[in-house]
């Protein structure tokens, strides 16, 4: 009995594991982190009286970057994933997409509270960033494969070892590397439909 029920449950849960089969979650988040780092870096190197230092210029750049990443994710699904392994539309998409975001927010709040209790609120911003990325990776990088634990450990190590100025870039690159690995494995293991 249990076996039959487990088999049915496995089929019911398969579509959930299909969301990130191509590594799009990791690639999107990685590109976002690297993009934010790039904006920050640009802000630091250009002269203070340049156009770049106007608030609207940065807002336009941010919106363009987020829009571009969103469209790139859509294009990946449309031109790579759907022709290979098919299209799936999920019920209540907004709620599903909010799960990693809510988990990451809870992680940030928990880290802050722990710091408040243990160290009187004295905390590096990068520790919170690291905790957020750690939880976000654990939730968004599903389905979890053994090699993904390596990336999880890398994020944990980076939380404490990477210099403040490069933390965002480091987390972005880890996510991109994980996403590229997932995508490469997916492309190698599947073929475009005839």
């Amino acid at each position, binding site marked *: 009995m249990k076996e039959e029920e487990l088999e049915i449950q496995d*089929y*019911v849960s398969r*579509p959930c594991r299909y969301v990130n089969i191509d590594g799009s979650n990791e690639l999107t988040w990685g590109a976002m982190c690297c993009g934010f780092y790039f904006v920050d870096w640009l802000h630091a190197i250009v002269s203070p009286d340049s156009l770049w230092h106007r608030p609207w210029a940065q807002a336009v750049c941010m919106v363009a970057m987020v829009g571009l990443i969103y469209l790139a994710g859509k294009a990946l699904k449309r031109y790579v994933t*759907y*022709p290979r392994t*098919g*299209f*799936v*539309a999920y*019920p209540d998409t907004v709620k599903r997409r909010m799960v990693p975001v809510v988990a990451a927010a809870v992680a940030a709040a928990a880290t802050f509270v722990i710091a408040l209790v243990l160290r009187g609120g004295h905390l590096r911003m990068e520790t919170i960033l690291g905790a957020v990325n750690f939880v976000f990776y654990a939730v968004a990088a599903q389905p979890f494969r053994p090699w993904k634990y390596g990336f999880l450990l890398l994020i944990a190590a980076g939380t404490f070892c990477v210099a403040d100025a490069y933390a965002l870039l480091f987390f972005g690159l880890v996510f991109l590397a994980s996403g590229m690995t997932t995508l490469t494995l997916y492309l190698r293991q599947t073929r475009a439909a005839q």
Partner: protein
Amino acid sequence: MNAGVRNIGEIDRVVHEPGRLMIVALLSAVKQADFLYLQHETGLNKGTLSSHLARLEEAGYVAIEKTFQGKIPRTLLQLTAAGRAAFEKYRRDLKRVL
């Protein structure tokens, strides 16, 4: 005759067939999926999958919509309310019988 054996007769034969059970279970978790996705997940060939889908459509459990994405035809499949109810009932019946 004991109750468990009597209940076997109540099991929905349309859903009980292994191929169709896979299809219904997969569709129960999504809003919509295409033919290619079902083929990929079930491992069934096109002919077998088509015949199972035709049977499910005939029973009113699956709605089939044929569309085009650019020039490429796409078959979208969705579990109907009746199909969803039949799947839930099937799972309950199975628990009771075994």
